[in-house]
C-alpha cells in the first residue's frame, strides 16, 4: 500500500507569534519555521507502518510557496520515499488544500492518507475531515493509536470524554494526535540522503481546481493582555486574597 502524508510548514511552536503593525497578519519574515508537529506525528506513523510491512511507499506532500521544499526535505530526511510540492504563493484555506491533496491522493492511487489533526498556525483542524469527505472514504480523526488489518483499521481517538475506539474501513484518512508516537530525530546522513530523493513540483494552476478562498481576513490583532498580578508570600496570604479580594472561594 502507498500512503500519502500531508505536511504543513508553520511557525516554530516555541516562537511567540507577533502580529504585524498594520494588522494584516502575523509577521513571519525571518521567523523560525518547522514542520507542523502534528504532521511529524503523521509521518512518523507512516514510517512505522512501513517498518511493520503494512506500507510500501511513503509520499510526503505539501501545498505552498518557495520554502515549502525545506519542510518536504525534512520529511524525506525523516524517511519518506519521495515528495510532492504543489506550488502556489497564495495562502489557501483548508477546503482548497483538501481539494488539492485529494487529487494528489487519487493520482497516486494511495490506500491511506495521514495528516496532523491541526496546524498550529491557523488552528483550523479541518483538512483531514475534508479530505475524507471529498474522497468518500472513512475518517479516523484525532488518532492516538492505529492498527491496520487487511481492509479495516482499529483506531483509538482522543475525545473530550477520554479515549474512543472505532473501526474504519480502508482506504481511510487519519489525523494524528501528539500522543500517537514520538517522532524520530533526523541524523546528518539522513539529511544528505534526502537531498537525492525525488521531489516533484506541480503548479497549482495545472490541477484545474476551484481553490478560491471563501473567507477574507479583515484584520489580525493581538488579544488584550492580562493586567499584572502580584506575588504573595505565603499560602495564608493566598487564601486570604482569594477569599476577600478576588472572592472566588
Amino acid at each position, binding site marked *: 500500500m502507498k500512503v500519502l502524508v500531508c505536511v504543513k510548514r508553520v511557525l516554530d511552536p516555541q516562537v511567540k507569534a507577533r502580529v504585524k503593525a498594520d494588522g494584516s497578519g502575523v509577521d513571519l519574515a525571518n521567523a523560525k519555521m518547522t514542520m507542523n508537529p502534528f504532521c511529524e506525528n503523521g509521518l512518523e506513523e507512516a514510517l512505522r507502518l512501513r517498518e511493520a510491512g503494512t506500507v510500501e511507499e511513503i509520499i510526503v506532500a505539501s501545498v505552498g510557496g518557495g520554502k515549502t521544499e525545506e519542510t518536504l526535505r525534512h520529511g524525506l530526511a525523516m524517511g519518506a520515499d519521495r515528495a510532492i510540492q504543489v506550488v502556489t504563493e497564495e495562502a489557501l484555506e483548508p477546503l482548497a488544500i483538501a481539494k488539492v491533496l485529494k487529487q494528489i491522493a487519487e493520482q497516486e492511487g494511495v490506500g491511506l492518507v495521514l495528516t496532523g489533526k491541526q496546524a498550529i498556525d491557523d488552528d483550523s483542524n479541518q483538512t483531514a475531515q475534508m479530505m475524507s469527505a471529498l474522497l468518500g472514504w472513512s475518517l479516523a480523526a484525532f488518532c492516538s493509536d492505529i492498527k491496520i488489518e487487511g481492509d479495516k483499521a482499529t483506531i483509538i481517538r482522543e475525545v473530550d*470524554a477520554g479515549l474512543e475506539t472505532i473501526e474504519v474501513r480502508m482506504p481511510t484518512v487519519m489525523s494524528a494526535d501528539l500522543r500517537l508516537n514520538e517522532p524520530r530525530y533526523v541524523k546528518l546522513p539522513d539529511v544528505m540522503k534526502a537531498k537525492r530523493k525525488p521531489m516533484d513540483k506541480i503548479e497549482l494552476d495545472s490541477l484545474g481546481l476551484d481553490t478560491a478562498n471563501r473567507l477574507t481576513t479583515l484584520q489580525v490583532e493581538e488579544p488584550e493582555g492580562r493586567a499584572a*498580578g502580584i506575588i504573595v508570600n505565603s499560602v495564608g496570604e493566598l487564601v486570604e486574597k482569594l477569599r476577600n479580594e478576588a472572592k472566588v472561594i
Partner: protein
Amino acid sequence: MSNLVIVEHDNNEVAAATLHAVTAAQQIGGDIDLLVAGENCGAVAEAAAKIAGVSSVKLADDAKFGHHLAENLATLIVDVAPGYSHVLASATTFGKNVMPRAAALLDKAQISEIVEVKSPDTFVRPIYAGNALATVQSSDEIKMITVRTIMFEAAAAEGGSASVEVIGGGADTGLSSWVSQAVSNNDQVDLTSAKIVISGGRGMQSGDNFEMLHKVAAKLGAAVGASRAAVDSGFVPNELQVGQTGKVIAPDLYIAVGISGAIQHLAGMKESKVIVAINNDSEAPIFQVADYGLVADLFEAVPELDAAL
C-alpha cells in the same frame, strides 16, 4: 437568516456545550432550529425543544447515529443544511470531527472556533494558539461554524416550546463502526463547566501525587486538570489536558501547580477570571499571566493549602 445548530448529546441529555452554540446563533440572528441525531434519543429532542429561543427541533432517531460517527452524521447534515444560512456546532471533539466533513461535502469553508460574532457574515477566531485574533468575513451562502463555548454564555435550557419534527436519515455509509469508549472517572467535576479548576504539571512528578490536588479540589468543588507534560508522562488521562490541543476552559479560578506556562498551555486557560500559579521557579512564564503567584515548593504549598481550606 436561519440557523441550524447540531445538538451534541449522549442519547440522554443535551450537552452543555450546545447551549453556548445556541447563544452564538442568537447573536447571528434569525430563526434557530436544532438537529438531534442519535439512537433512542427522544428525550434529548424533548429537552432541546425547551431551550429558549428555538423554533423547531429535527429529530433523526436511528441506530446508525447512535455513536455520532462522522460519516453518517455528516451525510445527514448535508441533507438538512440547504435553506439555512448558518450551521453551527460547538468546537468540542464532537463538532471538530463532523463539521468539516459536512462542510466539504457542501463545498463550503468552515470557520473554526469563533469567539465573537461581528455580523452575520463576519466572525472573530483565534489563531496561533490564541496569540492573535483574526476577523474573517465569509462569502459562502451557508456558513459552517464551530463555536468556542467559553466565549458565549449558555442559552437558557428552559423557556422554549419548539415543535419536534421527526426526519429520516438516509442510508448507512457503513464506513466506520463504534467499538468502545474508555471513561476514566465519572464522579469527578466536569472540567469544562467547573467554576474552579486546579491543574498539575510535570512538577507533580507522578500520578500518585495528583491525589494532593484531588483533596484540594474536593474541598473547593473543583475539577482537576493537567498540562500536556503531565498527560504525556502518564500521570493522568488525556481528557484532563488543558491547552491548544486539549480543552479550552475559563473557570472563575484556575490554580496552576507545577506548570511552567508554555504558550500552548496558556491557550487553554488564559480566559480564566482569576489565575493562581504555584511554582518554585520565580522566572516561570506562568507568573506573567497569574493574578496571584506563589513562589514555593508545591510539595509544601499544596498540603498547606489543603489544611487552610
